[in-house]
């Protein structure tokens, strides 16, 4: 039997994903041991795992290097890959928002030159250009995006917000919500056809497990 390959996002999603797979009877012990191996196996179920940078997971799955992936919806929206988004795993829930200083509340469209700092240039563009019909200048940053409006690098930011505490402490507010974000299970389009039985068994298992929670 061919191995099914699952790509997991490295970071806060890893543990939650492992928990879920263990609950449906997939052996993740190799994954939990602090080994330096890149590819880990469950020989009994013929499943291979690997951990990848979250933003790379959709790429692995689209190209068929992994059959299944676990990744946040933020990454999926940003990468815009051609794959099946089969399950909302519910965990790691937060929101993608536009945020800025309080004096911009309700005045977002009056701003002539919009400079938007973000880790998600594609999501930002899509939102402003398609949903609002406004042109923007995107400033791509790699972290601490909240800093940008404070130091005059940008007018607003597009970023993930969980509790909103960082925003509040820095005098920023949510100006608009773009999307609800949580972890998703994605499947390669060809694998879904060629390995439909095994993959559907995993999907159904996970779905049932989620319903229990």
């Amino acid at each position: 039997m061919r191995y099914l390959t699952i790509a997991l996002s490295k970071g806060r999603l890893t543990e939650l994903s492992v928990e879920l797979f263990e609950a449906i009877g997939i052996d993740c012990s190799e994954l939990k041991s602090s080994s330096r191996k890149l590819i880990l196996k469950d020989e009994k179920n013929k499943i291979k795992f690997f951990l990848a940078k979250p933003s790379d997971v959709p790429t692995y799955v689209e190209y068929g290097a992994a059959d299944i992936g676990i990744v946040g919806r933020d990454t999926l929206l940003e990468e815009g890959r051609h794959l099946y988004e089969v399950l909302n795993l519910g965990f790691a829930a937060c929101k993608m928002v536009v945020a800025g200083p309080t004096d911009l509340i309700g005045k977002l469209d009056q701003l002539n030159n919009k400079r938007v700092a973000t880790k998600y240039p594609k999501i930002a563009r899509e939102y402003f250009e398609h949903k609002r019909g406004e042109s923007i200048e995107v400033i791509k940053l790699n972290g601490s995006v909240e800093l940008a409006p404070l130091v005059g690098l940008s007018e607003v930011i597009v970023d993930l917000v969980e509790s909103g505490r960082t925003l509040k402490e820095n005098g920023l507010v949510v100006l608009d919500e773009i999307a609800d974000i949580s972890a998703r299970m994605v499947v390669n389009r060809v694998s879904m056809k060629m390995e439909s039985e095994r993959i559907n068994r995993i999907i159904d298992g996970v779905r049932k497990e989620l319903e229990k929670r």
Partner: protein
Amino acid sequence: MAKWRIYTPEGVQDILPNECFHKKNLESKIRNVFRSYGYYEVETPMVEFYDVFSLESEIAPQETMFKFFDKEGRILVLRPDITIPIARLVATKYKDADYPIKLSYIGDTFKYNELGGGKQKEFTQAGMEIVGINSHEADAEIIAAAIDCVKSSGLENFQIDIGQVEFFKGLMEEANLSNEEIEQMRVLIDKKDFLGIEELVKNHDINEDLKELIFSLPKLFGSIDVIDKVEKYALNNRCIAALENLRKVLEILDDYGLSKYVSVDLGMVQSLNYYTGTIFRGFTYGVGFPILSGGRYDRLVEKFGEGKPATGFSLGINMIMMALDRQKITTEEPMIDSLICYGQKGRKNAFKICETLRKQGLVVEMDITGYEIEQIKNYARIKGIGGILNVLDDENIEVHNLENDEVKKVSVTEMLNNR
């Protein structure tokens, strides 16, 4: 200035003899299938006016095309696809034909693809088209031919999924969604994004049965039972006609004996403006992308003149090669049967022997180095040549068998008569 001299641009590549041998062999196997169905090949230009493709923004988005200008400033493109040029060709060159036109093609196409997973910016496509008829038989024949092409390549484990975009369009008609929402829905169903579908359906006043059906669309794939399941719902005529067509096509494919390669997918909904009926895609192990795709496109030819219904498919030669490689399916390898070298007095005979052997269908290399026999043997070993004929003079030949390192002497007459 010459900074890029030794490089090839990203997304295009040289193809070396071994791979090229496999590629050309594959193309000729597929060409044989085309001919055996009576679909003779055409060639359309590599370069076309941008206008040819500009109306098909789903199949050939502007930003994916290589563009340049002619002397008059008109926009030219490297063809991103061959079906659209064939529609132009049929609409203009077969204007008055009142019978089905059957054509095929094998050629290079160009797209600013993201690279990887078998995708290149220059890639070879092979395909067949029937223009001028809309029948279940035409839909089925084109699928049968596609299956034969894949089989001829050596792939055995593959699957063709068949869908019907009219079914989806019929459902949307009933649900009374705006064009924009229909496109949104199409994308969601195409992604099997259940949550998104639920969200979109929720905000509309749609009857419960229809809601349930739309919501189940992404799951509606598998055997012919899928159609039975769907037929239990109250459907409008458009949906019923679509299912009827699908059922007929599957029946015909069953008579072809091809049922084992075929399955149904009602949730397959690509390019609604382009496709107008049965659509299909081919999948196999080892490549993350479809190896072929096709379907009915009755509204394309009319953009170039008088309207004609049409159906066809195109198959990615590079994808098939990658699948063969990944599935470790070996096909014929290039090989050289023998190498002929000669002493000063043997040259004329050497050419005679060489010509005779080549006429018999053997692959024979002639030595052009004039090196000593030991050096020639080394060369032959590197190239995997089985034997060397050293023509010494008018009469004597040394036969070096490189597999067992034996040397035999034979006469020229023996050699020419024995073969």
